[in-house]
Each structure stands twice: as structure tokens, then as C-alpha cells.
């Protein structure tokens, strides 16, 4: 009877249903059941699972970061190796260029020397030929001069001594 009057009062009057103590036992009973249900679901299943997920994610992130660090070190090493290879290659190229230059220079020197020698030989030969020609020409001049002198002397009516004329021409040519 008491509950009926209470609920009738609550239905019509603007009082607070919260202060209707006849429903407290009911609410508390269901609340305790709900809390126990939530507690078991959370503590036995949900929370350990979420903790495991978070831990796993943390582990994954950590290992991924470590892997990234490794890869970065590797990349740096590769870069250093590449730079070193580049420097080596450059040095090698310099060396090869130097060698080639030296070889070419020596070849060139040899060729120049040979050419110089040849030129010198040719020049000597030519000089020799020129000297011969000159000597020949001198002889011819002497002969012509002597002949001419003899002719001139005979033409002037003199008797030309061949030996005297040639010595006289020689003396004049020298002088």
C-alpha cells in the first residue's frame, strides 16, 4: 500500500522521484549487477587486451625506429663509400691522365729528337753537298779565271806561262 501511494504521488505531484526511497533497493540491486558486469568485462577481457595492443604498438614503433636508425647508418655508410669511390676514381683518372701525358711527352720527345737528328743529318748532308758544290764552283772559278787570264794574255800577244798564270790567279782569288 505504501508503495502504491508513493508511486501515485510521484505520478501526479511534481515531487522528486529521486527521493522516493521505495525504489532505492531496486536501483541499488541493478546498479550493483551492472557494475559487477562492467568490472568483469573490463578487468578480465577489455583492459588486458587494450594494454597488450598498446604494448605491442609501442614495441612495433620502437623496433621500427631502431630499424630506421639502422637504415640511416647504412645509408650514411653507403654515401661515405660512394664518396670514397668517387675520390678514388678521380685520383685514378688523374693518375691515368698523368701517365698518358708523360707517355705522350716521351713519345713526343723521342719523335722530336729523332726528327731533330734527321734534320741535323739532312742539314749536314746538305751542307756537305753545298760545300762540295762550293768547292766545285771555286775550282771552276779558278779554272775559268786561269783560262780567261791565259786567253787575255795570249790575246794581248804575250806568251802565257800556264803555271805562273794559275799561281797569279790563285793569289788574286785568295786576296
Amino acid at each position: 500500500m505504501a508503495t502504491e501511494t508513493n508511486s501515485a504521488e510521484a505520478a501526479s505531484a511534481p515531487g522528486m522521484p529521486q527521493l522516493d526511497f521505495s525504489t532505492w533497493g531496486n536501483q541499488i540491486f541493478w546498479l550493483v549487477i551492472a557494475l559487477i558486469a562492467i568490472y568483469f568485462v573490463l578487468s578480465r577481457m577489455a583492459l588486458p587486451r587494450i594494454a597488450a595492443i598498446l604494448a605491442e604498438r609501442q614495441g612495433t614503433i620502437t623496433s621500427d625506429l631502431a630499424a630506421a636508425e639502422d637504415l640511416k647508418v647504412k645509408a650514411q655508410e653507403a654515401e661515405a663509400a660512394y664518396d670514397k669511390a668517387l675520390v678514388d676514381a678521380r685520383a685514378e683518372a688523374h693518375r691515368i691522365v698523368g701517365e698518358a701525358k708523360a707517355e705522350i711527352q716521351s713519345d713526343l720527345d723521342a719523335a722530336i729528337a729523332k726528327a731533330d737528328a734527321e734534320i741535323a743529318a739532312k742539314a749536314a748532308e746538305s751542307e756537305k753537298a753545298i760545300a762540295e758544290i762550293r768547292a766545285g764552283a771555286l775550282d771552276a772559278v779558278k779554272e775559268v779565271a786561269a783560262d780567261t787570264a791565259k786567253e787575255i794574255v795570249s790575246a794581248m800577244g804575250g806568251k802565257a806561262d800556264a803555271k805562273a798564270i794559275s799561281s797569279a790567279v790563285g793569289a788574286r782569288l785568295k786576296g
Partner: protein
Amino acid sequence: MATEAKGEEAGLVFHPMDQFIIKPLFGDGAITWYTPTNAALWMGFAVIAVIVLMLLGSSKRSIIPSRSQSVAELAYGFIYKMVEDICGKEGVKYFPYIMTLFMFIVCANFLGLIPTAFTPTSHFAVTVVLAMAVFLTVTILGFVKNGAGFLSLFWVSSAPLALRPILAIIELISYFVRPVSHSIRLAGNVMAGHAVIKVFAGFAVITLVSPVSVVAITAMYGLEVLVSFIQAYVFTILTCVYLKDALHPHH
């Protein structure tokens, strides 16, 4: 009947508290302690919401979380960090209890915002049980962990000696007022918001006022969404603070 007739005369019928009436789900009989009522139904919905969010949401265990899983993780991280920050490392072992309180309150509050829903947390019966559970747990735990040393909570050793007895009385009163404020804060906030929405809805009967009423209800609803979360948060953080007192009673 008298109030109804009066209300119809004025064109306004206010029953802002009717939404809090507890009714049996089946039939019209008296409410005994085991009767399935609307309160029991919505507490059950809160339990289902917790299961869906925390259990089904995290069932895939994916490294890159889905939306529901990230909500579950967010809730977990939020409360876990709160417990750890306030109570320290020893507090972590009470994390499931605090998480239970928070998830129940937050789910019940938000489900109560569905129109025509019933909000279990608007009833003092519910919040008083929650607050008393925290109060009793903290008190018993404080004495179990620290023995008589727990009483140093009331003896403010940093104050001048002459002031200490007075402060002890004040601290003692404030300690026993805790469960009262703890429970009334939650139920009062939730109940007030729902009742205000109902009052605004009552004004909608007048044609001229009804647009204003709709706007006001919308604004109140937005506020209630905030209140639903904030009150759950406040209840949880106060629980953590009280738990900290039990674990480290020295000021």
C-alpha cells in the same frame, strides 16, 4: 487533477520531473528489489555500450587502430594516465575499479541524452552508492595500508601547532562531506539539465515561443553533452584524489 486542470488553463503543462519516475518494464505492479524497471533497462544498455566500445572495439587487436578501437584506447589511456598522474605507481593496481566507475557513468550519461531515454545517473540512489563505495573503499584502504598513520591526513603538520586542532576538525568534517558532495554533484548536474530541457519543451506549446524554445533546447542539449562527459570526468578525478589520500595520507 487539480494541477493538470490549472496547467491546461494556462496552456502550459510542466512535468519536468516525470522523466525520472521509475516504472516497471512489464505490467503495473509494485516495485520490489528485483523488478526489472526502466532504470535497470538503461543500466543494462550502459553495460552493453561498455562491452561494445571496449570489448568489440578492441577485438581486432590491430596495430593501426580502427575508429572504435582508437576510442577504446583513448578512454583507456585517458583514465590510466589520470590514475598514474594522481595516485602514482601504487595507484595503477586500482585502475580497473576507477575505469569501471568512469565507463559506467559516461555511458549512462550519454545514453540518457537519447530522447525518451532514462538516465540512471540522475538518481541519488545510484550516485550515493557509487560515492559511498569510493568513500568506504578509500577509508578502509587508508587504514589497511597506513594503520593509524592514516589519521595524519587530518593533522596538517605544515600548519602552526596552535592551528592544528582546529584544522583537524575542519579536515574531518570535509572528509565526511566528501561522499555527499561527490554523489549530489553528479546526480544534481544530470537531473538539472534534463529537467531544464523538459521545462523548455513545455514552453513549446505556445506557438510564438516555440522557435525560441527549440533553440533553447538545442543549446541546452549541447551543454548537456559537455556536462555528461565533464561530470563523469570530475567523478573519476575526485575518486583518484581520494584514493591518493588513502595511499599517501601525509600532506
